[in-house]
């Protein structure tokens, strides 16, 4: 890949004929790395480094939205139902379960679900893992207090279709949290050239810059799915301190949006 010139949109994977939002090439890619999900020094090292901050963000958003009181008390999320879409090896599902939530994790790669299920079993955590797409659960008529779309949107085939299915899974008044990568020159420099080619944090090809989503595109897409964005926060990395922090003024690369499901059912 010529890193000086971002590829044109023409090389995007063709939409799946069954109108599923799952991108088969992406599933194949992550399935191969599945063994390494729980290795903090493996290919998912950046995700392990980012995990504490995004968990804290999710925890605090949920505590605030569902009025749960003191975040320092054990199991502040007791009783909340959470769906984690694109759960991978369960890096978010397990902490959310320990915080008291009843968690369902779905992933399109069955290898990921195997790893996640085995890991949770050995950690003695009860989590409902399924190899499924968002649309499958929506078809079952399931609804959750919270739907997490963390670092998933940039890997799906059709963002609008995917978010519409995900929104149907949020009960009215519930929350969806979306974390993804912005499509900017800066994100190309940092997330593709920096993280994959220079730092070798991620295997080359982990991300496809053309699939990154601008906050405005996300907002429009969510609005048509009857979701209203409440907060929009950037996540920035300090390479000297090797730490991540929240930064409301820099949405240029990684960002997280919190959206509330309005009462009307999506079309």
């Amino acid at each position, binding site marked *: 890949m010529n890193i000086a010139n971002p590829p044109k949109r023409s090389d995007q994977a063709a939409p799946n004929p069954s109108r599923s939002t799952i991108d088969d090439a992406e599933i194949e890619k992550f399935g191969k790395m599945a063994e390494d999900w729980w290795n*903090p020094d493996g290919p998912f090292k950046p995700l392990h480094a980012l995990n504490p901050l995004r968990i804290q963000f999710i925890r605090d958003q949920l505590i605030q939205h569902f009025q749960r009181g003191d975040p320092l008390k054990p199991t502040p999320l007791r009783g909340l139902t959470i769906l984690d879409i694109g759960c991978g090896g369960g890096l978010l599902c397990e902490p*959310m*379960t320990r915080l008291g939530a009843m968690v369902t994790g779905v992933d399109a790669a069955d290898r990921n679900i195997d790893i996640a299920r085995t890991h949770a079993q*050995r950690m003695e955590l009860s989590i409902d893992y399924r190899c499924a797409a968002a649309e499958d659960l929506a078809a079952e008529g399931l609804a959750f207090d919270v739907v997490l779309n963390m670092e998933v949107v940039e890997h799906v085939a059709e963002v609008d279709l995917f978010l519409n299915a995900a929104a149907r899974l949020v009960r009215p008044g519930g929350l969806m949290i979306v974390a993804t990568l912005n499509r900017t020159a800066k994100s190309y420099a940092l997330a593709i050239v920096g993280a994959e080619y220079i730092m070798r944090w991620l295997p080359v090809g982990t991300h496809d810059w053309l699939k990154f989503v601008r906050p405005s595109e996300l907002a429009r897409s969510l609005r048509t799915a009857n979701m209203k964005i409440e907060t929009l926060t950037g996540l920035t990395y300090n390479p000297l301190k090797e730490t991540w922090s929240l930064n409301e003024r820099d949405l240029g690369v990684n960002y997280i949006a919190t959206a509330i499901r309005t009462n009307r059912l999506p079309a």
Partner: protein
Amino acid sequence: MNDKNDVDIRADVLIAGGGMAGMTMALALSHADVRAVVVERQAPTGMPKLSFDGRTSAIAYGSARIFDGLGVWSAMVDDAEPILDVRVADGNLTEGVSPLFLHYDHLELSSDCHDSVITPDAPLGYILENRTIRRALADAVENSENIETLAPSDLASVDRTAFGVTGVLADGRRIKAALAIGADGRNSPLRVAAGIAATDFRYPQTSIVCTVAHDRPHNGVAVELFLPGGPFAMLPLPGQRTNIVWSENSELVTSLMALDDAAFLAEVSRRFGDWLGALTLAGPRFSYPLGFLHAERYTELRLALIGDAAHAIHPIAGQGFNMGLRDVAALAEVIVDARRLGLDIGDATVLARYERWRRFDNTLLATMCDGLTRLFSNDIPPLRLARDIGLASVEKIPPLKRLFMRHAMGVVGTLPRLVKGELL
């Protein structure tokens, strides 16, 4: 993999060793609802007796803050003597004390009190008898719903995997936890079993520890006299008593310990001097061999070492237990931070944070104390002159002196929340 039914006791952490470090660790975690099982070889009732441990500990100001944050300081403070003044001097038995000496007064830090950690008239630290500390900790541990103490009890093995630790007791019972903490002393069986190497050597010195009563009040003054055989420390205790930590050539200690009380007291008085009037022995004498130990790593898969299991140093600066308490405060903080995010508390990233945090501070102090011991425990004239000038120079450079004082008070570096007087 063990079947769930094979487990008799479940906890978040398994702490090997119920000494001062282990009990403080369990207590710190209990405040954040992290449940601990403490396995201790000694029967709990045997420990607070004077015959078990005649030593005292210098509790640095920062360490007192840790105890206060855990709610146990109030049970110790009545038996704690504040150190208001420290005098350090070099001397030998024929020429007496060198005129160049170092003098630390707690009021000197008042000019430094614009930071939030030290209050204006804070003492430099406190001297407490170890049995006082043990008793206060044991009472608090017993009253905590989050701590289960198994004592006397022996750990036959601790099996650590990527998914958890399983401790097997000598009686066959099994304990399952997410993390094992080695608070099992200088010879730490957990450290040895984990294959963690350590720098480990003995000094040719042994410490004699005893307590004397005297006619005149000590006014909270601690004195450290550097004699050729080793440092002779006079540590103020409540009630016109002074605890002596007398490090001396090990061969000489054998004969000193064999003396009758009158002859032993005469040897003590020769070194102590008459500044507090006539002395009488106020309890038995003990001797402890002195050594240095520093583990190459403090952590391994689902294992963290604290206190003497990670580092044991010469008592020259009274820092050993304070280092251990800062280990406890830092490890408790990283565990609790992980727990509040629902993360696995035994995860490698959690332990790496502890290792990074504590290694620098401990390496610095351990190396300094070893250097001091070697520099002062001799009577070689050029070295004596050099160290006397060194002591006097520190005395003449207030910022350097204040930095040394802050080090001794345990309030330097990235401070754990407990040391800052915050809630865990």
